[in-house]
């Protein structure tokens, strides 16, 4: 409750430095037709090379926030600025990934990966990117599957291909909408570690939406906890566990303490 009374002040993580890449100021969203106040004055700064996550109960406006950040929806008020330029629609320097890999079964892995280039710049440009796409395929460990159709890929492999497709345009920010939640627990842990490796290797700025507290903690430099209706950030928790983290990090008592803290924040929200 004490935290909520701070409404209006920016809830910012401490101890993070780096060039701001993505900045949201006072972003609100109201759906007039349904009279729903989905987001209320959200302030957010994503710094270069950092991994942030938001976590909150369902219906807290997470997906609305993500759609606004992806340029799929306009905010009702506030400003959304990526790399100094306002986001007024979909942009090629925004990479996005969904819960489903959404690979197209009539295209091979390679053709799926260069699809964003083909849509924006045409077939010739897409073909010119094949070498780059192959390097990405190596990076995510899909070598040998360049020319197979998605029906031959497992769920985890399909998500690896989706990662390549997201990276091929060299986006300034990666928006991840529960990217591995459709995978089984084992693949999910493994893919999270792979995601960390890929992000560290490319110094990527990433923003994750998730329902899993351990997943948010293991991947992130900062976790934003959201409250529902209207969605707003309740607290920003800096995760100062050393990198690279491994699955053993989950056994670290500090990890347990952070998970516990976030869970108690969410429980407060649920019983208000």
């Amino acid at each position, binding site marked *: 409750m004490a935290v909520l009374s701070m409404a209006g002040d920016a809830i910012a993580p401490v101890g993070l430095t780096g060039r701001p890449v993505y900045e949201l100021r006072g972003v609100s969203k109201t759906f007039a037709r349904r009279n729903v106040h989905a987001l209320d004055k959200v302030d957010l700064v994503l710094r270069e090379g950092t991994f942030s996550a938001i976590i909150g109960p369902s219906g807290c406006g997470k997906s609305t926030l993500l759609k606004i950040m*992806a*340029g*799929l929806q306009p905010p009702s008020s506030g400003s959304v600025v990526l790399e100094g330029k306002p986001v007024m*629609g*979909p*942009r*090629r320097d*925004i990479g*996005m990934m*969904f*819960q*489903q890999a*959404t690979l*197209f*079964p*009539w295209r091979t892995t390679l053709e799926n990966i260069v*699809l*964003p280039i083909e*849509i*924006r710049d045409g077939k010739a440009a897409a073909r010119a990117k094949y070498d780059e796409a192959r390097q990405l395929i190596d990076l995510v460990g899909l070598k040998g599957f360049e020319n197979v*159709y998605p*029906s031959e890929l497992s769920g985890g492999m399909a998500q690896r291909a989706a990662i390549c497709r997201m990276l091929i345009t060299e986006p300034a920010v990666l928006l991840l909408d529960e990217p591995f939640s459709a995978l089984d627990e084992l693949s999910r842990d493994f893919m999270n570690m792979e995601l960390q490796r890929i992000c560290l290797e490319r110094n990527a700025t990433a923003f994750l939406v998730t329902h899993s507290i351990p997943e948010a903690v293991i991947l992130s430099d900062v976790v934003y906890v959201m409250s529902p209706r209207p969605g707003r950030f309740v607290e920003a928790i800096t995760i100062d566990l050393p990198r690279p983290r491994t699955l053993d990090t989950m056994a670290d008592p500090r990890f347990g303490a952070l998970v516990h803290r976030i869970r108690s924040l969410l429980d407060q929200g649920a019983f208000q």
Partner: protein
Amino acid sequence: MMHAQGATVHGDVAAEAVPEQTIWAEHVSWIDRVPRWVSMLALMIGFLAVWQIIYLIELISPIILPSPLETIQDLFVVGKNLLTGDYMLLALWITTQEVLLGFIIAVVLGFALGVLVGETAFGERAVMPYLVAINTMPKVAFAPLFVSWLGFGIGSKVALAAFIAFFPVIVGTAAGLHAADQNARMLFKTMGASRWQTLVQLKLPTGMPHFFSGLKNAAVLVVVGAVVGEFLGGGKGFGELIRVAAAQLNTPRVFSLIIYLSLLGLATFWIVAWMQRRFVFWHKESVAEETLAQ
């Protein structure tokens, strides 16, 4: 063996040596094991036998129900006429032309209207209700109109065939355009795809299986349309041969002509099914199962 079983019954399992391998087969009922050709042949023989019995006990007057033997004999007569390029081949060729032209028109028209209805709000809100209204009309009743507009040649039959067959193509196309899921649409938006790109690269390929099931329905209906057109509008096609044979109470001839006509329908259906396997290679389905479902 007897001893071993006895031991098990008495619960003395621990004393038994466990065999090296414990392989066993699941029981499959004989009806699921019969090879396809055997079951198909058995059904055919059964059908012919029932037919023969009905004929022999004169359950139905022999004048209107021929014997299986007569029908098979006539199949050879008609087959010979077709193979030697006589007047029946000409009639078949006329009907084939009507079927193919009607099919092409139904596909082009149905696809265009399907895209209009499935892709635009105008089409969905304003055009679709009229199309549904047209579809509820008994289309066969338009045959005399087509004859008076287009004459007794193949034009009126092509028109009726296309008219009867075009609606499933619209429905298949429109349903296919709605088949792309939310994630895929969002992905295309984030990639900055135009409406045209989304239609051509996402919605149409996703909708291909629906489109082809519409085509399969149309392939069957188009033969119906052509033959009904010939019944009602004369001409020189296969339908006319059937009509004349029926008028002469030459029932073996009617049966054998219908059987040859069904080959025409089967051929169009299989051409569509082949195209589907070729162009929608990612969509695995058993053509046989779908044929059965229709």
